[in-house]
């Protein structure tokens, strides 16, 4: 082993230190009195300001300084200043942050959140989100009266719902979501409304019929699992793994037709041990997959598809193992 090798685990974080992506580095980059260049996206383009750095200065402090000293008509929202109200989210250098919880950077461009209509300067209209949340009926409806008091309810049962309850509705995730950025291309409700739904839909006391009705309106299987939402969540909610995936599991149980893709993949893995992509596509799109003949031929020429493999299932050690662990007696 040559001495210049990185330690195990270091390679996956290459760039963190180099690009000063750590809290320690961020806090030592500026000293009191340093000028900060702040560009704010306003109706008529980017307005540039020079703000003197004060120790522990946050993005919100910089905005307040601008409003008090340079542009009294600057429109931005904030209320609590302490990461609780969720009103001050903006994009700083392309990343969604809470203005009240983010250290300033020496050179920063502040923009309003994406995927929501801009009202003025940094203020966005939250109406699309609020309408969607209301549509999802995010409340608890009991199918039966209380059985006893206190109700038996374990931490394990509430594990995911309690994480969703940390949501402050700041819309950072909604702004970061690439599927939402495609507009009405799909029926995906977006991370923020889904987290709001998860607060009660992942509660085991909720009425299954109502949860099923809500899930049908989420388009949840159009989540591409990119984790952009988790990356920007100021409340550190594991939005994909702790909310969207458990809700997908609920959908698979309550509204199976929503989960066709997931169930087809599971059954293919269970019988073959691995995924044959052509088998999956055929299962999901049926005969229409074959209609684009030129494309199929192109793929065939490059041997990207292999009909022999697709139609002739071979028994292998992997298929044996998959049958053992995903077979009929192990249906979720």
């Amino acid at each position, binding site marked *: 082993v*040559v001495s*210049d090798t990185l330690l195990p685990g270091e390679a*996956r974080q290459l760039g963190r230190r180099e690009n000063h992506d750590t*809290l320690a580095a961020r806090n030592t980059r500026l000293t009191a009195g340093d000028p900060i260049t702040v560009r704010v996206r306003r109706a008529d383009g980017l307005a540039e300001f020079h703000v003197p750095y004060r120790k522990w200065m946050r993005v919100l402090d910089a905005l307040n300084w601008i409003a008090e000293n340079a542009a009294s008509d600057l429109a931005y929202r904030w209320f609590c200043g302490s990461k609780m109200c969720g009103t001050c989210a903006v994009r700083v250098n392309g990343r969604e942050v809470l203005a009240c919880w983010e250290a300033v950077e020496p050179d920063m461009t502040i923009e309003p959140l994406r995927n929501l209509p801009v009202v003025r300067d940094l203020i966005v209209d939250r109406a699309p989100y609020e309408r969607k949340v209301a549509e999802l009926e995010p409340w608890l409806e009991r199918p039966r009266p209380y059985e006893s008091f206190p109700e038996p309810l374990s931490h394990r049962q509430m594990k995911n719902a309690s994480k969703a309850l940390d949501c402050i509705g700041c819309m950072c995730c909604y702004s970061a979501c*690439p599927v939402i950025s495609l507009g009405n291309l799909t029926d995906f409700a977006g991370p923020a409304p889904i987290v709001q739904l998860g607060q009660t839909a992942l509660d085991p006391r909720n009425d299954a019929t109502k949860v099923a009705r809500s899930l049908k309106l989420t388009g949840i299987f159009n989540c591409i699992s990119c984790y952009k939402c988790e990356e920007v969540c100021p409340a550190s909610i594991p939005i994909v793994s702790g909310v969207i995936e458990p809700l997908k599991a609920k959908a698979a149980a309550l509204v199976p037709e929503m989960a066709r893709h997931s169930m087809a993949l599971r059954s293919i893995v269970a019988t073959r041990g*691995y995924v044959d992509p052509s088998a999956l596509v055929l299962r999901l799109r049926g005969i229409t997959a074959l209609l684009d003949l030129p494309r199929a031929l192109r793929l065939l020429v490059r041997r990207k598809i292999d009909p022999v493999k697709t139609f002739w299932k071979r028994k292998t050690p992997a298929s044996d193992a998959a049958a053992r662990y995903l077979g009929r007696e192990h249906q979720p």
Partner: protein
Amino acid sequence: VKFAYYPGCSARSTCAELNEATHLVAARLGLDLLQLDSATCTGARELRAIDPVGFFTLNVRILALAEREGLPLMTICNTCTLNVLDAHAAFLDDPDLAATINARLAEEGLRYSGRTRISHFLWVLYEDIGEARLRMLVKRPLSGLTVAAFYGCHITRPPQRYKFVDSRNNLALERLAEILGCRPIDYSGRTECCGFHTAAHDERIAIKLTGEHIQSAKAKGATTMVTPCPLCHTVLDGFQREIERDVGKVLDMPVLHLPQLVGLALGLTPRQLRIDRHMVKFDPRATIG
């Protein structure tokens, strides 16, 4: 260095060239790979959502197979990597889950104790080969290539696995491109999503998103893209004709798997690395500056 090697489904079907290239390049790098043939699919995104116990069992089984050989595990697919990393973390975090899985694995005489080191090929280059040795092994610096690195998602997010405040700070691929003699570029799609995971039921998301990434790479002067993930490759390369139709432009952007880029610099030919299996043609003359 010896590794238990897990190629995943894509590298054994749609992207079979990746598996071939990885074996060739590993041999040149002095990596000894033991391919885990009885390993199953890690469950992609679908199994982990609808059947968590099945998902954890299949993944911990892969880790147990490597542990039985006493070897670290090398992966070449982003999603597989995150799946085994997540299963490993859940196994250590939840003793009840660990006991359940080990009880099921006992049927096969397998047992996991939580010791397998998991490494993607990209990380192996830095942690097991090392930059100095890699530089020595470069026979043909790829000075003609202006490369747009496409990380994809699961090799750099979620933050609880990789600790980035902003995954766009990841530099592993750009630094590697420099070591191999190419010129890396910065563009908006670097750590964005290709949209693969919904493509089996609806390709439109993948086509729209990836169209923007390829156009951005092209606008910044990239002549080739490189990705550490066969799923991203499937969209970037395999869907490029459909993407071109959607954006109404000829893109003609060749996309290499990471081991293929390394292999070219180590002196292997495009034919040996099976670059001819890609949908978009790669011109080998482009590698010479």
